[in-house]
């Protein structure tokens, strides 16, 4: 009897031992799987998808590819019969897939075509060597360092369309640029050499003469990085100098995107072009102020005679985020994303802008344009509301009125009154 009990106990002990081994083996396998996963994470690329786009990153981050998109669908409604081509329309304003990233640790790149408005064009295609912190070298097609609002991302502007000073600066150009933040980001400089493009143009991707445009910009944020009432002050000056020989004539547009100025027949771009662009912003909590002045002198030729014409434009805009988010040069991130069922309504911003554009009177006197068809003076004001649902999606509604000086046979062209409604996805 005792022997049988001993045998039974021995058998039970054996079973317990075997079970214990099985548990230990299972635990060890789990441990090894976790170790293998951790080792894999150190040596294999990671793929993420979040509000910053789709990202593939090598271990250590020396290689990175981000894929994003920038989509803007606009509804333009013209009120009255003032503007020339005042056809109400829905337009895919910007349709831009974006590929950006890093190679060999120090080289960033960006490639961004645009398929909006029925055209295909490359807007950004550049590489930037970030080896020296005080001199980052950028090569390719990008925004030359002149205008403040032009350098602001299309998705971050407070209004659906930029102000009148942006009509007088280059939009994109091909060239080289050295730039950097200095003195703990208190100063930023950029100097570059470019092919040269007409005002508000992205050019033809090739030079049309041997001349080059030289651009430079200095921008100071002297109260950074300390946080205080003045930390949002930024002030700077952008400038460019070059030659317009062989270039297309510039095309100037209203807030409603109407090309309002037509040069006289036989006029060509020729001679020097100088751009000066003093600029500033100020941000404090939900409040923002941005001001910019543009002064250009550009050469034109008609019937073998060259003339230099001065253009001036300014804008001043104020904005305030009603929901209290911090206003800055970039779009705000809503404290609570749009999710009404759970009490989230996103961020709401009000903004207003006043602006002016003028060509010197000589443009008529020298026969470069006719006061019966081309106004030489514009004055605009714009009011708008921006509704940021989350970091990616924004709805903007702006009303803009532009008054013209000249441009009609019997005096002034009728004002343009337009409502622009934008739906924007910015997945970058």
């Amino acid at each position: 009897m005792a022997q049988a009990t001993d045998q039974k106990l021995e058998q039970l002990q054996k079973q317990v031992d075997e079970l214990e081994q099985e548990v230990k083996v299972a635990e060890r396998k789990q441990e090894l799987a976790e170790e293998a996963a951790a080792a894999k994470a150190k040596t294999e690329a990671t793929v993420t998808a979040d509000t910053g786009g789709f990202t593939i990153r090598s271990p250590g981050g020396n290689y990175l590819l981000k894929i994003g998109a920038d989509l803007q669908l606009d509804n333009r409604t013209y009120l009255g019969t003032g503007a020339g081509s005042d056809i109400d329309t829905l337009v895919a304003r910007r349709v831009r897939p974006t590929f950006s990233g890093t190679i060999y640790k120090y080289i960033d790149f960006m490639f961004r075509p645009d398929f909006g408005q029925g055209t295909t064009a490359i807007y950004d295609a550049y590489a930037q060597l970030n080896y020296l912190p005080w001199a980052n070298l950028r090569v390719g097609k990008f925004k030359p360092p002149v205008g403040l609002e032009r350098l602001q991302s299309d998705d971050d502007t407070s209004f659906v369309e930029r102000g009148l000073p942006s009509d007088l600066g280059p939009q994109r150009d091909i060239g080289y640029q050295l730039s950097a933040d200095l003195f703990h980001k208190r100063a930023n400089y950029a100097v570059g050499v470019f092919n040269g493009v007409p005002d508000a143009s992205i050019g033809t991707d090739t030079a049309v003469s041997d001349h080059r445009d030289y651009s430079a910009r200095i921008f100071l944020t002297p109260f950074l990085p300390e946080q205080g009432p003045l930390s949002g002050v930024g002030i700077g000056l952008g400038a460019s100098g070059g030659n317009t020989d062989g270039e297309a004539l510039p095309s100037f547009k209203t807030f409603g995107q109407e090309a309002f100025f037509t040069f006289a027949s036989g006029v060509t771009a020729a001679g020097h072009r100088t751009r000066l662009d003093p600029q500033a912003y100020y941000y404090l909590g939900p409040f923002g102020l941005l001001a910019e002045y543009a002064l250009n002198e550009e050469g034109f030729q008609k019937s073998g005679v060259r003339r230099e014409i001065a253009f001036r434009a300014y804008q001043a805009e104020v904005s305030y985020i009603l929901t209290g988010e911090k206003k800055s040069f970039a779009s705000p991130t809503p404290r609570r994303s749009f999710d009404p069922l759970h009490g989230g309504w996103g961020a709401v911003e009000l903004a207003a802008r006043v602006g002016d554009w003028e060509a010197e009177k000589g443009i008529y006197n020298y026969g470069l344009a006719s006061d019966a068809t081309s106004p030489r003076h514009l004055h605009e004001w714009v009011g708008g509301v921006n509704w940021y649902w989350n970091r990616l999606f924004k709805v903007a509604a702006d009303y803009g009125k532009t008054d013209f000086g000249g441009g009609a046979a019997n005096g002034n062209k009728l004002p343009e009154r337009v409502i622009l409604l934008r739906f924007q996805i910015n997945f970058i």
Partner: protein
Amino acid sequence: MKTTTIRNCVAAALLAGPALFAGTVKLLNVSYDPTRELYQDINAAFARQWKAKTGVDVEISQSHGGSGKQARSVIDGLQADVVTLGLAYDIDSIAEHARLLPANWQTRLADNSTPYTSTIVFLVRHGNPKHIKDWDDLVRPGVSVIAPNPKSSGGARWAYLAAWGYALKKNNGDDRKAQEFVTRLYKNVPVLDSGARGSTTTFAQRGIGDVLLGWENEAFLALNELGKDKVEVVTPSISILAEPPVAVVDKIAAKHGTAQVARAYLEFLYTPEGQEIGARHYYRPRSPEVAAKYASRFAKVQLFTIDELFGGWQKAQKRHFDDGGVFDQIYLQGR
């Protein structure tokens, strides 16, 4: 004659120069799993010797892991000045795929660039409750064998081939029976670690399995750490002569300006002091004098070589360990 001397001096200066001017010479030794303790002692001894000889400080970093994995790391860019791996095939891989050293690297140092040898033994629980005496005991039902993965571990490949060799010899060279034997053996392996040190952890720390199949030096290290009241070393009747080789990674050492000190470091392994350190860590010395001095540490065992039974590493690797090879077949079959 003079010209030759000057040329040699210039060459030596060029080789050693960048490192010497740097103040402290830094070397990275990429090694296999169980050599951590061995190279800690070797490094300290060599640094002392090098300082006394040249006046230059040398700082040697170590990297350890499964031999195959370590070779892959060097191929992928790990900046090893020297490699001290578990088997020649892994250094051949570096020569072949990354071309960081010549194909004939094994001829550059004595004994095929293998300053010490080892073999495969068994580590069992105290009292040897499963009565494991020889290879046949490992394939008995109910015996749980702990061994690392031959796909990533050099020691595991030696162990696999040791088992195969035993079965071949026992069955008069019958390859089919050898494969059956090894299949049964791996059927008894519940966990495959990536390296020898991981398997020791599985067996000793986690308490899994009845027997650990692995390097002789690793078994004795575990015995010393755990105590004779916990584990015992069992030496089988026959095993394989494991020859873990060493080599300077020429291109990386040249880039770092460490070629001269790297070579001296490996040559130090052949010196009486280097051989004694190896023997103290249970690596079988090449030097007859040191081997005689430490004879009592190493059980007498009949050893066969990889050339003898498998035609060398290239053939063995291709047949047994490459993807889709015999090991893949038998391990999947055994699951």
